[in-house]
């Protein structure tokens, strides 16, 4: 018998953790002399009460779904990929290269090819850490951190010295040709008399992200590969016994992970900026960790957690817009959410287990 029903572990624990994080965040807001309640109202109104608010929320959500899935694949294989950030940067490079240099007839073709490029570039950036982990036991956490820094240097070099249009100030590529511009929610849903999602950056990649969730579930729980990844993640010795190659699984899982991180660039680079800028990832790779943890590495959970963080980002933007709360508050809230859902989850789980045990004994 398990100590606690599965639903409690999957729903109750993260929920209470989030509440604790929210409580502390409220205290922080109080401490800097603002009203937590007003802040929350503002956040909800700005993020959820208007279609363009949703357009931003879902834009951020798209990023976090990809990075959340990226971290989750690695988690399933018992690896901690902290390099989503760098993989997404390099994924963006792949997107930029195909968008700039291949003349596409239609955005759909462009999206298809760019997806491939993003995934391949992101995956390749994860390959060396994966290989070193598999073959040489180099701790993947450290190597992926290092690869984040190296990716930043690579991207800077490429943008400043190679891809920047002459005379441009921005360390960014030229704007992609119009044929590669992806339809935004506004393009898709707005009608002349009902201008929905005006100006919001959410675009078709959101559906790609949802598709990725479904594919993630299929691969993880319905294919041999997913079976092997999960088995390897739970027990390496057992995997060896079953003839599952640790090297292969480590490398394949990290390739998938890097590929998913790379695909985040579709949203930021092709969907939103329509050019590659230096700072396109903006820490989404790290948020992916919190998203995967809160979502218990399951696509449904990841989707919901990504939505929560999307809300936090968009709501935080509204806060910055209409109050004098510094933008660092959002960083603090993120930190608290990661801390409580990721590292201090046992603080919630242990007492809960005791409660459930007592309930069962009582019954």
């Amino acid at each position, binding site marked *: 018998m398990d100590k606690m029903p599965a639903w409690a572990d999957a729903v109750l624990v993260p929920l209470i953790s989030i509440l604790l994080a929210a409580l502390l965040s409220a205290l922080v807001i109080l401490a800097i002399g603002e009203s937590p309640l007003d802040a929350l109202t503002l956040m909800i109104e700005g993020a959820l009460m208007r279609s363009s608010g949703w357009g931003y929320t879902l834009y951020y959500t798209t990023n976090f779904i990809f990075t959340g899935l990226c971290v989750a694949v690695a988690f399933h294989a018992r690896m901690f990929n902290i390099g989503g950030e760098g993989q997404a940067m390099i994924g963006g490079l792949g997107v930029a290269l195909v968008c700039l240099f291949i003349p596409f007839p239609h955005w759909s073709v462009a999206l298809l090819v760019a997806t491939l490029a993003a995934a391949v570039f992101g995956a390749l950036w994860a390959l060396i850490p994966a290989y070193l982990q598999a073959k040489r036991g180099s701790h993947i956490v450290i190597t992926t951190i290092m690869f984040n820094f190296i990716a930043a240097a690579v991207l800077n070099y490429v943008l400043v010295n190679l891809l920047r249009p002459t005379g441009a100030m921005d360390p960014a590529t030229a704007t992609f040709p119009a044929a590669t511009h992806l339809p935004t929610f506004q393009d898709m849903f707005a009608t002349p008399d009902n201008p929905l999602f005006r100006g919001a950056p959410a675009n078709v990649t959101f559906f790609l992200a949802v598709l990725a969730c479904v594919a993630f579930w299929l691969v993880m729980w319905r294919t041999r590969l997913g079976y092997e990844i999960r088995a390897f993640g739970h027990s390496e010795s057992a995997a060896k016994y079953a003839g599952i190659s640790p090297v292969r699984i480590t490398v394949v899982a990290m390739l998938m992970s890097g590929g998913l991180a790379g695909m985040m660039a579709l949203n930021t680079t092709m969907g939103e900026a329509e050019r590659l800028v230096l700072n396109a990832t903006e820490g989404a790779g790290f948020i992916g960790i919190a998203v995967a943890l809160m979502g218990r590495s399951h696509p449904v959970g990841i989707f919901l957690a990504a939505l929560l963080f999307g809300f936090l980002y968009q709501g935080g933007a509204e806060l910055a817009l209409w109050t004098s709360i510094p933008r660092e*508050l959002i*960083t*603090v809230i993120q930190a608290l959410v990661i801390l409580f859902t990721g590292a201090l989850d046992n603080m919630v789980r242990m007492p809960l287990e005791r409660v459930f045990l007592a309930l069962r004994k009582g019954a």
Partner: protein
Amino acid sequence: MDLLTLLQVLDSTVRLATPLLLACLAGLFSERSGVFDIGLEGKMLAAAFASAAVAALTGSVWIGLLAGIGAAVFMSLIHGLASITFRGNQLISGVAINFLASGLTVLIAQDLFGQGGRTPSLIGAGRFEPITLPFAEALSGVPVLGPIYADLISGHSILVYVAFAMVPLSWWVLFRTRFGLRLRAVGDSPEAVDTAGVSVAGLRYGAVLICGLLCGLAGAYLATGLQAGFVREMTAGRGYIALAALIFAKWRPVHALWACLLFGLLQAVALRYQNIHLGGITIPVQVMDALPYILTVIILAGFVGKAIPPRAGGEPYVKER
């Protein structure tokens, strides 16, 4: 390269290596006890801010130093709570601490000083001044050795000497004292320590506190020794480099010294010689910038000998499932 240039590069190396060394030794204590710590960066940052802020408010760098240590220790305690008491994931706790420090420092700084996450510039007794060692002036005329003593060894702030003194001290504590024996044991086999009647949690908290103390020194050195105030994100990834140095050093104090000096040297060289021209090829500055990270990966790949972490490292000690 003439002696003078060499000395200057080495001098710069010493300054750049000092925060790395302190953070590296901090990580060493923590990880030797079995608690992995990728939150060195955040602790250093918190300490840098607290020391500069309090030094600015009180005008005393010493009170600032204490505050810096206090801030880093506080962060350590959060890490301890998560990874020792509540057996959480140590890596995630570290990530959270880095975020927390990055946000809180600016938030508080803004609230206190309204200078956009910066502290006011420290003046006079608010910062650590370089110390001129005895006879430095007199001896500087002596060929070779004179300049080495006067320029390289003398003329740093007190925390530099503290940092270097920490190396033999750490070694002695780890390998010559009862505390050190137990600390090493708990990182390798916590159940052996437990059954020997010593508290695993107690030892680990002890180690984590020392880690906080040393990170506090590192952060205070950045903000009040090298600089005259705090600037947001001023640690600029040094915590991660320190971590890399720790692995390179295979969790040994004296090796840590050499590893940090090496990384310091790399940075010093990269700063002095950007865009190195080798024959027809120009090595772009980005390569020099990324060199420490590339080197770390190469080291990790085992081309420079395999690094085996403490056996129980990263795993919470769970007695009852």
